[in-house]
């Protein structure tokens, strides 16, 4: 039995403790609101990571599922006075079905063809949200109905409760992703990413596995979207269901590190903090977009496994194993 925690575990626990007590040392709402953004983007990227990272199916329509969670929350709470917590099953259910429709339409395609098809699906969802304006208020968007601080309505006087909610939601997505990767479907999905033809020839039902992973990723995204909407207080198709948001979610995961449990978390903090910092520095002149694009290019060229790979042990073990094998053969 291990007597002591490993250094890695101690670092993780230390970071969690720091995160939990951090608001005690910060005055004002600005820093906290940026961190809440980081947490929610990390959570959204973690959801994307299930299908985009572990499955290698680069989807650019995840904003659709975030929007479904967000709209389920605001429509039910504003029009029917139902707590956002009870809107979760609705968002999850619609996302599950939408993912099935998108999956059936796109999973016969591969690589960039699949990605382009998901862009079209995401845009179709955005247009549909705009079209059904009697329910969704169309392009005008919806504001949260604020009736004072109320936990069950997810309305607060400052962003500190959202900060803790963000941590909980992020840890939930990390836990679900971890459990998924250790499940049979998780293993099959990784095999499909490795070689789809070989996986199928060995008995893995490729379409079924991809669809299951996509649906899980979509449902989880809608949960994050529900809480993220309450933090934003305003949602609209051009922001919450946009291609820009889908891309940002994917980029956060790619920069942090795909197919890695903590990569999207690292990416969430690096990308969002960088965007905030450059926005302050460059203002609205588009300089921040340039830096953001530059970061993506640098990561893809020099560290395609993402920034998290900087913290991984090197490949010395592989070489050692191969040398040992050769010696035994000799």
């Amino acid at each position, binding site marked *: 039995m291990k007597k002591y925690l490993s250094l890695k575990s101690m670092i993780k626990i230390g970071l969690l403790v720091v995160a939990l007590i951090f608001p005690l040392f910060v005055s004002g709402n600005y820093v906290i609101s940026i961190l809440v953004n980081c947490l929610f983007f990390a959570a959204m990227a973690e959801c994307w990571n299930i299908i985009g990272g572990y499955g290698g199916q680069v989807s650019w329509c995840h904003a659709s599922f975030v929007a479904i969670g967000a709209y389920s929350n605001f429509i039910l709470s504003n029009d029917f006075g139902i707590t956002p917590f009870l809107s979760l099953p609705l968002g999850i259910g619609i996302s599950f079905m939408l993912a099935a429709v998108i999956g059936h339409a796109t999973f016969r395609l591969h690589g960039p063809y699949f990605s382009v098809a998901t862009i079209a699906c995401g845009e179709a969802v955005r247009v549909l949200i705009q079209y059904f304006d009697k329910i969704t208020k169309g392009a005008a968007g919806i504001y949260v109905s604020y009736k004072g601080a109320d936990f069950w309505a997810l309305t607060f006087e400052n962003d500190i409760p959202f900060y803790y909610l963000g941590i909980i939601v992020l840890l939930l997505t990390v836990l679900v992703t971890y459990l998924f990767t250790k499940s*049979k479907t998780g*293993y*099959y999905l*990784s*095999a499909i*990413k*490795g*070689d789809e*033809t*070989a*996986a*199928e*020839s*060995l*008995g*893995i*039902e*490729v379409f079924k596995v991809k669809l299951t992973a996509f649906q899980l990723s979509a449902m989880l995204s809608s949960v994050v979207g529900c809480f993220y909407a309450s933090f934003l207080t305003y949602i609209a198709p051009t922001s919450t269901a946009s291609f820009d948001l889908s891309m940002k979610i994917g980029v956060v995961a790619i920069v942090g590190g795909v*197919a890695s449990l903590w990569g999207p978390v690292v990416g969430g903090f690096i990308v969002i903090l960088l965007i905030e910092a450059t926005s302050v520095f460059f203002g609205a002149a588009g300089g921040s977009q340039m830096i953001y694009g530059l970061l993506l290019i640098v990561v893809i060229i020099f560290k395609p496994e993402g920034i998290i790979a900087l913290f991984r042990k090197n*490949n010395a*073990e*592989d070489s050692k*194993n*191969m040398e*040992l*094998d050769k010696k*035994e*053969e000799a």
Partner: protein
Amino acid sequence: MGTLLDVNDLSISFGGIKAVQNLNFHIDTGEVLALIGPNGSGKSTTVNMIAGIYIPDKGIIKYDGHVIPNKMDIANRAKLGIARTFQTPRPFANLTVYDNIYTIALLHNKYTEAKEITNDILKLTKLDNLRNTNSGKLSIEKRKWLDLARTMATRPKLIMMDEVMAGLNPAEMEASLDLIRAINKEGITVLFIEHVMKAVVSVCTRAIVLNQGKLLCEGEPREVLNNPDVVAAYLGGETDVAGN
């Protein structure tokens, strides 16, 4: 010893090219049957039709006494016990050697059983030392062994080995032949598609020869390989292709 695979009147064309024409052959349970022929003779196409990658234009494939419907997909054929390797090995390069096998073992077993089966296969295929190595970093020989190891995890009755000797040096070839014998000893029937004639003579009990999509002849490997028609079709000369 019954018939495991029975191929009747199998044909397929791609555009105007008749890749396989009216092919008939069978494999008995426990046999190691060689399927040989010059490049473009239809060997891999035949394997692809049995595996479900290509749908034949005509003909029947009977496996274990049952006709395999043309519509049956690749994964379901694998579940019946029809496994195959590829000319170019296709490891799941993002996974370790252990996880490559464990993932497939999970298809038919619970987690703990899958672990045991994976360990047994690692020992059988002599990949135990490389269990934690990333499969993308393996040598060609070990990649081919990993392909075989993964097929073993599917609980196969039949393994179609597509040019497992290609690109190997003589020492690697000997080791690979030992592995194939060990796999056959486990009661697994082997369809051995190969260009290396020494290997064919060494492990196969029977051989069939394809030429231009048609069955040219069949029989005991050494006899078949010395058949003048086969020599002419295969090598275009009169050399003893058995290597004597």
